[in-house]
């Protein structure tokens, strides 16, 4: 089911927005229509499925904040349609729009947007108050939402007594208390420091998996986008340049801009075992016997091989000397000769988590599916290769990301050593953004 549908949406601020849209549609660029107005969003189209986390990623000025504000009608599109369920936001009247905001779409803001003179509990209860829920009931619901985000015991504090991370939890609790299906998050974690940000991301994913909300998340941090997003839309200068899963964007960037963008991504956290695994060179079936096993290993020139049964379920690993011993002892089966000392990982394990097991094993790591079937192996060299980004042309955006390259490299080393797990990804490919710097001063 589609929760939100955006169709050819334009937003132009300025004196003659309609004319600007017409000219852009006729092929003019954003700069050419500057005199008519500033085109913040150009021809954006996408669908967000129910229960999906859809991330819109772009630098400041790319139009992502304007885009998200059209999804709950804070801005009206200059042209195009935004549909929430069956309602077209550009057509509904003010009353319907308010009802829609109460029941269907809630929002979390970059700078929290809490009411400073109200307690945490009353802040969380605010949407319910607007919905006309009675005092006792709304306070009970708000308390539930606060418990959900881990703020039990803080309900009587004022927002100013809380740290940034906790304030944003209040913002999140407020949006959850509204109990809408759709959650808009505008740079919700950008104002938080990296460790807290990572924690909030995990919490959001956890909440999402239990509550099943449709989340549209805006960020300028590619690592955050890749970590959270089921799908990601990359925006540049008002246009969506690519929509895809993080793996699709990493492995098949739509253009040089996106390629430049992802150059600094911590690939080991985005790519999973399934994206780098290969067919095992030597594979021994349980019923095949020691002679077949020896031949397999000899042909593949490996010292050991994985043993699978008839249904390809991974049973263990047989070493060359054990196979030879079994042959000498005249056994027809490998039963009793293979060992179960091996590491198997699931297909959706991020590469970052493969380094440690891989370092301890001489064999390529086994990748199994949910039923324990062997689906592939990851040799150690593949792991190391995967960390190196593909060749990218030195195009125009090089200067934008250059500043962070050193940090990203440093971070890759840290990951290799399996250290500093939490802090690493969030700081790395964060793109320079004016908003975040001014933010620090505010809070």
């Amino acid at each position, binding site marked *: 089911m589609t929760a939100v549908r955006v169709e050819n949406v334009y937003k132009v601020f300025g004196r003659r927005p309609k004319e600007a849209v017409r000219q852009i549609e006729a092929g003019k660029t954003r700069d050419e229509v500057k005199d008519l107005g500033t085109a913040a969003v150009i021809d954006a189209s996408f669908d967000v499925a129910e229960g999906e986390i859809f991330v819109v990623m772009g630098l400041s000025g790319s139009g992502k904040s304007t885009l998200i*504000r059209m999804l*709950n009608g*804070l801005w009206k599109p200059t042209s195009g349609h935004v549909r929430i369920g069956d309602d077209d936001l550009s057509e509904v009247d003010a009353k319907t729009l*308010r*009802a*829609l*905001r*109460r*029941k269907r*779409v*809630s*929002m979390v*803001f*970059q*700078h*929290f*947007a*809490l*009411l*400073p*003179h109200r307690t945490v509990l009353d802040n969380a209860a*605010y*949407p319910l108050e*607007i*919905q006309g829920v009675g005092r006792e009931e709304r306070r009970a619901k708000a308390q539930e939402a606060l418990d959900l985000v881990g703020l039990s015991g803080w309900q009587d504090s*004022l*927002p*100013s*007594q809380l740290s940034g991370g906790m304030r944003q939890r209040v913002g999140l609790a*407020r949006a959850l208390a*509204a109990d809408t299906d759709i959650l*808009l998050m505008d740079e919700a974690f950008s104002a938080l420091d990296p460790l807290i940000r990572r924690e909030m991301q995990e919490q959001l994913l956890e909440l999402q998996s239990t509550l099943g909300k449709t989340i549209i998340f805006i960020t300028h941090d590619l690592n955050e986008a890749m970590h959270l997003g089921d799908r990601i839309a990359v925006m540049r200068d008002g246009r969506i340049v690519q929509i895809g899963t993080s793996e699709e964007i990493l492995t098949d960037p739509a253009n040089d801009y996106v390629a430049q963008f992802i150059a600094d991504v911590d690939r080991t956290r985005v790519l999973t075992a399934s994206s780098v695994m290969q067919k095992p060179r030597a594979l021994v079936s349980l019923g095949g016997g020691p002679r077949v096993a020896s031949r397999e290993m000899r042909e593949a020139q490996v010292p050991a091989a994985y043993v699978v049964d008839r249904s390809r379920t991974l049973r263990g690993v047989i070493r060359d000397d054990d196979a030879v011993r079994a042959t000498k002892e005249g056994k027809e089966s490998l039963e009793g000769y293979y060992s179960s000392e091996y590491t198997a990982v699931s297909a959706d394990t991020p590469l970052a988590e493969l380094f440690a097991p891989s370092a301890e094993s001489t064999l390529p790591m086994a990748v199994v599916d949910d039923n324990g079937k062997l689906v592939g192996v990851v040799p150690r060299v593949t792991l190391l290769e995967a960390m190196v980004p593909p060749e990218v042309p030195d195009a125009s955006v090089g200067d934008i990301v250059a500043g962070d390259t050193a940090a990203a490299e440093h971070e890759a080393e840290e990951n290799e050593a399996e250290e500093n797990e939490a802090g690493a990804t969030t700081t790395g490919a964060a793109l320079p953004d004016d908003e975040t710097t001014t933010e620090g001063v505010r809070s």
Partner: protein
Amino acid sequence: MSIATIASLSSAGTTTAASDTGTIVPRLPFGDWVASFVDWATDAWAPFFDFVKAVLEGAYDGVAWVFETPSFVVIAFVLAVIGYFASGVRLAVGTAVGLVVIAGLDQWDHSMETLSLVILASLIALLIGIPLGVWAARNDNVSRAVRPVLDFMQTMPAFVYLIPTVVIFLTGVVPGIVATVVFAAAPGVRFTELGIRGVDKEVVEAGHAFGSTSRRILRQIQIPLAMPTIMAGVNQVIMLALSMVVVAGLVGGGGLGGDVVAGLSQVDVALGFEAGLSVVIIAMFLDRVTSALADRSPVARALAASNA
């Protein structure tokens, strides 16, 4: 005094000045325009002005009754208690001492008249100014239209307002109150607009995003968050009203203004300074109380709590 006299006096004066400088700019009869407008309005809107006058006189009598009926001790005690609740013991003691000084200067009755005038004029100025400020904050066109009017109101020499109000309302407290309202309303409008425009855009957006109506956002978000600034405006309105009320003594506004004017016309230094000192004491009391109240708005307290 009739409007014709004033008009002829003023035009005679300026005409001479113009011919002296010998400019080629033709004489602009601005004064005549205003004078004939006021003349016309006095006649045409006479019932309205009579009504305004009756209402203001009634209101003034009511407020003055509150301050003049109880004895000195009662009023001084009540004002000191207000000082205590607004700020603390220091303000309470300061208020009591100040009021005793006023009584000692034998300016008590006039001071109470002045206080009544200030409170009434400030109330009216705020009743007009705050809604206008809210409107200007929410509508750019209103803001653009109001701004030059406010500039005019604030910078036009205070005495000038007395002239048409005297023409319309004759002498007494009413022209003083009207002139004071006009003179003092400007900061009420300005600070309210400034405060509401200064409210964090994201918080207002949050109100919209959760489906609140504009009216409710104004009541629950914009006004509470703008309250520290609005209270600063209230303080300014009261201070301006106090200064104007003294000037209104020129047209028989009564109170301390009357004494100041008498001191000036009779070159009575003693009377002038005694009345002047009383004005200063009242001003300090009103200023401290209103600024203390500004610090006690929920938002100001919430912000102060974070620093504590």
